[in-house]
């Protein structure tokens, strides 16, 4: 039963991911991306990780794709402008799938245990308490470093987007007054 549900959701995920890449209109792709994130969070729910599932939706579907749609609406992209030729797309897809298969095959040969079943999770697995304890106690350094990285990114964006407030020249003002 659970297996069937997993294969169903995984299949739908692949389908929606494909549609993200192959729909001509950017906003349609964004919509399929939202569906994809919903399905991903379904997989997390199957694993019993409720917190990660909800956060996945909050961060990706609730914020990041909203930004995508915002940018798409703002730029008003036309379908022709972004299509880079069908053959190129198909080639890149096939190449990517081959590379992925090769990596998985190498992993399987190098250490077959990676593809075996993981040990069962504890009873408190996936709850917000267990998640935070793991994050703050066991992985506090990587957690802090990730936070620092994000902070640096925010400062960088601020620097890039900052523009000095332009001082109006008195000459322009006079011209305007004359025009009025």
């Amino acid at each position, binding site marked *: 039963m659970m297996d069937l549900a997993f294969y169903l959701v995984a299949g739908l995920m692949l389908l929606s991911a494909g549609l993200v890449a192959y729909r001509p209109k950017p*906003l349609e792709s964004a919509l399929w991306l939202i569906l994809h994130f919903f399905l991903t969070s379904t997989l997390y729910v199957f694993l019993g990780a409720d917190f990660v599932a909800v956060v996945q*939706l909050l961060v990706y579907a609730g914020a990041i794709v909203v930004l995508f749609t915002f940018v798409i*609406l703002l730029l008003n992209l036309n379908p022709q402008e972004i299509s880079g030729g069908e053959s190129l797309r198909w080639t890149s897809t096939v190449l990517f799938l081959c590379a992925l298969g090769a990596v998985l095959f190498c992993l399987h040969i190098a250490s077959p245990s990676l593809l075996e079943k993981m040990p069962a999770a504890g009873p408190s697995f996936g709850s*917000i308490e267990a998640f935070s304890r793991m994050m703050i106690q066991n992985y506090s350094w990587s957690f802090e470093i990730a936070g620092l990285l994000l902070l640096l990114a925010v400062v960088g964006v601020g620097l890039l987007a900052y523009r000095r407030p332009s001082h109006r020249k008195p000459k322009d003002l006079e011209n305007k007054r004359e025009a009025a």
Partner: protein
Amino acid sequence: MEDTTILWLFLLGKIVLFFSVVFGMVAPIMIWVERRVAGLVQDRYGPNRVGPFGLLQSLADGIKLVLKEALIPQGVRNPYYLLAPVLAVVPAALSFAVIPFGPPTTLGGMFETPQRLQIANLNVGLIFVMTVTSLSVYSVALAGWASNNKFSVMGALRASAQMISYELAAGLAIVSVILLSGSVDLVRIVETQAGLWHIFPGFLAFLVFLPAIYAETNRTPFDLPEAEAELVVGYHTEYSGIKFGLFFLSEYSIMTTVSSTAVLLFFGGWNLLPGLSWADIGIDIQNTILGTLMAVSWFAAKVAFFLFLFVWVRWTLPRFRYDQLMGLGWKTLLPLAIFNILIIAGFMVFA
């Protein structure tokens, strides 16, 4: 252990009760209240002909909206044009699933263990509410894009920018509540407010939260996405009949959700008064049906106050200018919320 059949029936009862109350009673009554208060504020009558005090006006309007011709303008992007109103209602309905509307109750001895008056018992309830309300922006963006109308697109753009900006402030205000109660389970958050409501230590957080929820529901003074004077009515310009009705319905039900959230987070949920519990005046809200009903009505009364506040503010304050809106969100509310987290976290560590 309880009988599973009874539990399933209880769950079904909760779903039917809650949805019929919110969609069938709160939304129509709120529309009537809105128009009557508007009349009061502007020194005119408002609807007063259909039924006593015009109470059946919303019903009449609803029948009109359903019976109207389902108009689809030329040039709209069709599946998306029809999808947008549906996407507006789905988050509005989903977000009720985790709102507890009363204390855990045994319904006068019907159950052995107290059952929660909450449709889905999720241990991440608060984050779920935030997530689902943030998803409502898609219906607006989609409606604007699919309508093939420049005013609609402008409205959708404004709505997306506004919702993202104010979601941050609201989220950070909620973080301080999570710090105060040490949980994201809404029932647990209410239980931690038994002595002292979170509004007292978290007043600053509430000050950030209130404008943020007004902006998230696109209500005046933040209704720039549908500013009538500039954009016709923004993203739902091209919608009529029941499709417009769905947008309208979702606006009022999201208002109900955020009002309930405000009551649960800051105003003690169903707790009687700060410093005075139901047990102090001799009422057992867990084991007697009357007590449970009183607690639920007290919660409903608090939510009703917040709904009235929405209406009151709408007909009192003028609309912000767009740069004022963005300035308030990013330059005032966001730093204030971060500062507030620092204060509360420092207080909790050192005191």
